[in-house]
C-alpha cells in the first residue's frame, strides 16, 4: 500500500475547487434576475431588512417610537415634517412605522425559527423512523393541523394574557406542524433514495444519515417555506395585534397600530394606511422571495 502514502494534492485556487458550486450559484442568480417578481420580492425584503437594522438611527423622531406624547400635534396629515402624518398622541407615524420593522422582523424570526426548530427534527424523525414513532408524531401533527391556527393562538394568548412574547409563543405553537408535515414528506422521499441506503451499507448510524444525507436534501423546501412563513408569521402576529392581543404600547407594532387606527378611518386615513401598507409590502416581499426561491431551488415541490 505504499503508493497511497502520499500527501493530498490541493488544487490551485478556491474558484477551481468550488467551480461547481460557483456555477450553480451563478445559475441561480441568473434565474432569479430573470424573474421580475422574484427581484421585486428581494428588493422589498432588502429594504425591510435595512430598515430593521438601522431604523432607530435614521428616523426623524426616535423618541416618538418610545412613547413620546405631543398633545399639540395630534392627527396631523402627512406633510414635509411628518411624512406619514401623526397619530392620536401626536407621535410621528413615519418614525413608528420604520422602527416597527424591527418588531416585525423579530416576530417573524422567532416564530418561524421556533416553528422550524421544533418541526424539522420531528419531521425528520417521523419520516425516517416510521412505525410507531412516526404514527405518534404524525397524529399529533394532524391534530394541530386540524385546529385552526389563528383560533388556537387566540385562545392561547387570551389565556396567557396579551403581550409580544405570549403572542410569539402562541404562534410558534401553532406553526411547527407545517414543518413536520413538509419535512416528513420530503424525508420519506429522500429516504428511498439509493444514497441513503448506500450510507447505511457502509455502516453509517442513524444520526449521521439524518444530519449528512437527509437534512441537506430537505433544506430547499425548508428554506422556501421559512421565507414564506416569515411573511405569514408577521401577518398572523399583526392579526393578533388587531384583536388587541399583540405588542403592548408604546412598542411600535404594525398590527397594533392598525388596530388602534381603524377607529380613525376614514377621516384620518393615513394613520392606518401606512402601517397597513408596511405589513402588506413586507409580507408581499417575503412571499415573492419565497416563490422565487421555490422556482429555482425546488421547482417540483408542491405548494405549502
Amino acid at each position, binding site marked *: 500500500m505504499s503508493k497511497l502514502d502520499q500527501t493530498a494534492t490541493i488544487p490551485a485556487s478556491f474558484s477551481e475547487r468550488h467551480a461547481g458550486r460557483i456555477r450553480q450559484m451563478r445559475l441561480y442568480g441568473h434565474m432569479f434576475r430573470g424573474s421580475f417578481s422574484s427581484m421585486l420580492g428581494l428588493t422589498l425584503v432588502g429594504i425591510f431588512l435595512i430598515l430593521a437594522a438601522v431604523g432607530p438611527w435614521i428616523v426623524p423622531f426616535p423618541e416618538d417610537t418610545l*412613547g*413620546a*406624547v405631543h*398633545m399639540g400635534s*395630534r*392627527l396631523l396629515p402627512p406633510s414635509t415634517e411628518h411624512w406619514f402624518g401623526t397619530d*392620536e*398622541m401626536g407621535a410621528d407615524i413615519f418614525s413608528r412605522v420604520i422602527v416597527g420593522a424591527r418588531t416585525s422582523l423579530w416576530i417573524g424570526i422567532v416564530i418561524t425559527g421556533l416553528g422550524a426548530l421544533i418541526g424539522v427534527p420531528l419531521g425528520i424523525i417521523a419520516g425516517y423512523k416510521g412505525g410507531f414513532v412516526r404514527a405518534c408524531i404524525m397524529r399529533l401533527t394532524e391534530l394541530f393541523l386540524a385546529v385552526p391556527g389563528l383560533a388556537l393562538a387566540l385562545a392561547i394568548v*387570551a389565556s396567557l*394574557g*396579551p*403581550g409580544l412574547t405570549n403572542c410569539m409563543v402562541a404562534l410558534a405553537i401553532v406553526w411547527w406542524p407545517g414543518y413536520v408535515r413538509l419535512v416528513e414528506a420530503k424525508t420519506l422521499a429522500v429516504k428511498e433514495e439509493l444514497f441513503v441506503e448506500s450510507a447505511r451499507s457502509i455502516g453509517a448510524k442513524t444520526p449521521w444519515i439524518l444530519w449528512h444525507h437527509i437534512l441537506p436534501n430537505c433544506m430547499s423546501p425548508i428554506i422556501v417555506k421559512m421565507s414564506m412563513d416569515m411573511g405569514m408569521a408577521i401577518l398572523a402576529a399583526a392579526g393578533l395585534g388587531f384583536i*388587541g*392581543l399583540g405588542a*403592548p*404600547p*408604546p412598542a411600535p407594532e404594525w398590527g397594533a397600530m392598525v388596530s*388602534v387606527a*381603524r*377607529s*380613525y*378611518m*376614514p*377621516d*384620518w386615513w393615513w394613520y392606518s394606511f401606512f402601517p397597513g401598507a408596511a405589513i402588506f409590502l413586507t409580507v408581499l416581499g417575503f412571499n415573492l422571495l419565497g416563490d422565487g426561491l421555490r422556482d429555482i431551488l425546488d421547482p417540483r415541490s408542491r405548494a405549502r
Partner: protein
Amino acid sequence: FERTDAGNVIVFGGRQAIPVLDPHIRYDWSTRMIQQGVYDALVKYEGDPAEVKPWLAERWETSDDGKTWTFHLVENAKFHNGDPVTAEAVRYSFERGLKLNKGVAWMLKDFLSPEGITVVDDYTVKFELKAPYAPFLSFLPWWFVVNPQQVKANEVDGDYGQKWLTDHAAGSGPFKLGRWEPNVLYEVISVEDYWKGWPQGDNRPAGVIYRMIREPAAQKAALQRGEADIVEGLTSDDYVQIARVPNIVIEDHKGMTTFGIKFNTQKGPTADINLRKAIAYAMDYDAMIGIYNGAASLETSPLPDAMKGHIEVEGIPRQDLATAKEYLAKSAYPDGGITLDYVHVAGLEEARRIGLVLLDNLKALNIDVNIKPEQWPNMVAAGASVDTAPNMTSIFATPISTDPDAVAYQYHKNSWGQYYGIAYYDNPDVSRMIDEARAATDWETRAELYAKIQKQIVADQPEVFGMLQNRRWARQDYLQGFTFSPVRFTGEVDLYPLWIKEN
C-alpha cells in the same frame, strides 16, 4: 330609522352585546338599557341632576329609625300579558334578586333578607331592613319587577326562571321584546297601551332596534348613511369631526364615571406615599382632558361633581414638576430608576392613551412605565390579592346612585379585593367615618363626614385622581326626546321618551 307598517323603528348602534336580559343577573349598560325599556321598577332615575322619581310606587314612607320602608303601588300598572302588577310581584322580584345572589344582589343583601319583605295588601309592600341604610332608596331603580306567574311557569329545576329570562321578558315596561338575534340585533316593540302612557303621545315609535356594530368606523358609517339614528362609543376625535356633519347632533353631558390610576399602597415601590405624590404631581392633567378633546373635566375630589356631598378639595395635585421632584427626593427612590407596571383593560383606548401620557410624564422622574393591557377577568383576578395587584391600575368606576356612599365605600377596607379596592387603601379613620356616614339618617351629619373623608383620601393619595369623562352620543337631529341623567351607565339611553320627527 326604519319605516315599518307599524310605524318608525329607531335604530341604536352599539358595540356591546346583550347576552343575558334577566334583570336580576346582569346590569351592564346595554343590558340595562333594554331592561329599563321592558321592565319597570318601583322608582326611576330621571333628570340632570338625577332624581329618584316615583314609578310603580306612587309614594312611600320611611319609619323614624330608617329601617322600615313602605311603598304604595299604582293600581293601573299591568304586565305585558295583562296581569296586574301587585305587591306580591314586587315581593317576589326582590326575593328572586336576593336569592339568586347575582347581579344586583350586592346592593341590598347586607341589609335586606327575603323574609324582610312583606305584602301588606295588593298594592302595598313593606321592606324591613336589618339596619338603617341611608342609600336604600337610591338603589331601588335597579331592581326591576318581573311577573311571578310567567316566571314560575317557565321555571326549570327551581332556577327561578333564569334560563327562560335570558332571552325572554316578563315585564310591565313601555316596550316588549321583539326579535332577539344575539350578536346581531335586539328589538323591542312599544306597548300601545302602556299603563303610564307615552310622553310623546302619538309620535311614539313602533319600536327600537339595538343593533350590534362593533367597529367605530362602521358605526360612523352607519350613522352617516342613516342606518343608525344614534350611536355610542365613537372615538373622541370622531365626535369632534362628526359634529360638523349637518343633521348630526352630539349629545355631550357631564358624567359621573371617575377615572383614577390606583396605586398598590401596600406592596412594592408605590407603598411609599412620597413616590405616589411625586407621580401625582408629575402627571400632565391637561393631556387627560386633551385625550377627550376637552370633553372631560378634572376630578376635584374622589367624589364626582354631580354627587351629593361633593366638595372641591383644595390642594389636589396638578402638574408641578418641582414639587414632584421634591417628593421623589423624599421617597426611597430619590433618583427614580425604577420600572412600574401600569395595567389597563385591553381594548380601552383612553386608558391606553393615559398610560402613554403617564409614561411620557414619568420620564422626567426617571421612572419607566411598563404598559400592560389585560383582559378584564385576568386583571380582576390579579387585583384580588395584595401581592399580585399591579403597581398602578387604571380604573373607571361608575357609581350607580347619587349617594356619596356609592363612591366613598370604595375607600373602605371592606372593598379590598374588589376591582375598585385594588389600591388596598388602608386608613382606619376613613373606614370608620364611612361606616358612620352610612348609618346616619341625617343628611347634615353625613355631609360633614363625607367632606372629611374626601380631604383625607386626597391627602393619602391612594391614586392619581384623574378626570370625569363626558358621556357622548352622536344622533340624527330628527331623533327627539333624548334625555340625560348622570346616574345611568356610560352608553345607556332612556328609550321611553324617544321619537322620530319626520319632516
